[in-house]
């Protein structure tokens, strides 16, 4: 084979020699960016499927089964695509590659936020999401805290090796659910003492960094799924869901209006959020107005029979 371009030639001028070195650095970075970008695309696709799955929970005969299936999928995402990204980012400044994985990450946050809302009826915080994306390093020094806390019902708790895709050299995500780390990662980074971007807190781990702004954009998208669910639930005869969802969405909406000047992106999402909220409020209204025509107990009967279809 002919000699590779990257190799040095005897007859190069000093300038050309220097540039051959530059080339390697450029190629390395571009290749890494490309690999992360492709992983992000996969994550986007999987997250969209996950959301579809979760939309079937309300009105399902066996919601627990669906949630378990979702947890399985989330776990699989951690142990494959996210782990691979974490490997790529090890020793790197993750902001350099943020553009490569932000879109997959946001879609993932939308999905996982939705999952936790369905499981725990609350908005999951960034800290929990971030922790699930911390992995032990491959050069395995025995890690003390690798024993899982079984109190956690999330997908991260599922650490048995029944998943065939989880072979020996693929580590499991770590779950530091002890509180000593606090919510440091939602704290302002620039002034924080730890540096979650790229270098993880101790030298035995690596991570996929989740910047708070990406988290919030994912949360905004999540409210769109809440709206879909609320509207669907009316058809399924579920009379309480719209009101519960509206309450949750109002809290988020009010919060967003407080910092909607932070970026054009957030402002755009806020306006979509407001539209979604109004759709849910209209659903609540419709239930009230229609419900006014018969006594409450009879209303419930009617909807229960309707839901049975």
């Amino acid at each position, binding site marked *: 084979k002919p000699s590779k371009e990257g190799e040095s030639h005897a007859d190069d001028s000093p300038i*050309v020699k220097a540039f051959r070195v*530059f080339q390697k650095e*450029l190629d390395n970075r571009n290749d890494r960016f490309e690999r992360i970008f492709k992983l992000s695309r996969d994550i986007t696709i999987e997250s969209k499927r996950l959301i579809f799955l979760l939309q079937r929970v309300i009105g399902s005969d066996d919601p627990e089964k669906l949630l378990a299936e979702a947890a399985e999928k989330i776990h699989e995402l951690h142990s494959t695509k996210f782990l691979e990204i974490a490997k790529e980012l090890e020793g790197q*400044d993750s902001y350099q590659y*943020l553009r490569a994985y932000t879109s997959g990450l946001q879609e993932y946050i939308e999905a996982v936020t939705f999952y936790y809302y369905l499981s725990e009826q609350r908005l999951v915080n960034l800290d929990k999401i971030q922790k699930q994306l911390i992995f032990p390093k491959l050069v395995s020094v025995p890690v003390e805290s690798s024993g899982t806390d079984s109190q956690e019902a999330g997908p991260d708790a599922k650490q048995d090796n029944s998943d065939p895709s989880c072979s020996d050299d693929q580590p499991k995500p770590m779950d530091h659910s002890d509180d000593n780390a606090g919510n440091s990662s939602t704290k302002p980074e620039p002034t924080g003492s730890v540096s979650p*971007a790229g270098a993880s807190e101790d030298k035995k781990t690596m991570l996929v960094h989740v910047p708070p702004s990406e988290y919030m954009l994912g949360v905004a998208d999540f409210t769109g799924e809440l709206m879909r669910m609320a509207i669907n639930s009316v058809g399924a005869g579920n009379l309480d869901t719209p009101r519960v969802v509206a309450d949750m969405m109002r809290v988020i909406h009010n919060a967003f209006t407080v*910092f909607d000047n932070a970026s054009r992106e957030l402002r755009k999402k806020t306006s979509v959020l407001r539209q979604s909220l109004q759709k849910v409020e209209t659903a609540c209204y419709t239930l009230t107005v229609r419900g006014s025509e018969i006594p409450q107990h009879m209303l419930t009967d009617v909807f229960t029979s309707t839901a049975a279809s």
Partner: protein
Amino acid sequence: MASTQDIFTDFQEYLNADHELREEIRVVTRDMNQLVREIQTVLQVIHQPAQGTSMAELCKTAEDMFGKGKELYRQLAEKIPENQYYRYSDMWRFVSQRFVYLAGLIVFLRDGRLVTREEVAALLGVAVQREDGFHIDLDDFLMGLLNMTNELSRLAVNAVTSGDYERPVQISRFVSQLDAGFRVLNLKNDALRKRFDGLKYDVKKCEEVVYDLTIRGLVGAHNKD
């Protein structure tokens, strides 16, 4: 519902801190831009040297002004949290390119050769590689070099006007070598590639000046290499 509220409060704090840091960076980079303009003004004289202007002195003056640049980069580096270089680097990217361009110009005028990354780093008191701390990104180093070639092709023209016929020959050879260097790179279709596309016109301009001198016997045809 309290916990949900907390999340948003945290996020607000995050945004505020980010905003403040950006403001602080802006203050430093404004001073950097000011300094760059001043050094540039000193160096503009090369295009129209008065009788008795010493190139060596000019370079010395300009180089000394980098001392203040060092101090500014120290301030800047201090502000950037470890490993968040690329989060904010768009804010100093442009001015760093101009420092590289000026450093490259000084070194060429003085020593007739390409400035190294190490020299630029030393002049500005930053690290050469990302791993070793605050550094000048390779893309910005390269962009600075491309800005320099544009200035050099202009100098080739003006040197002739001032009666200096050796400088254009030196410049032409140098710019050709740089062009050969850049051709080795596999550039993506980005700003760097676009700027590199313009380099060929600088090469051509310099060749034309040498050609003009050669056909008039103002420089020897064979003293080029």
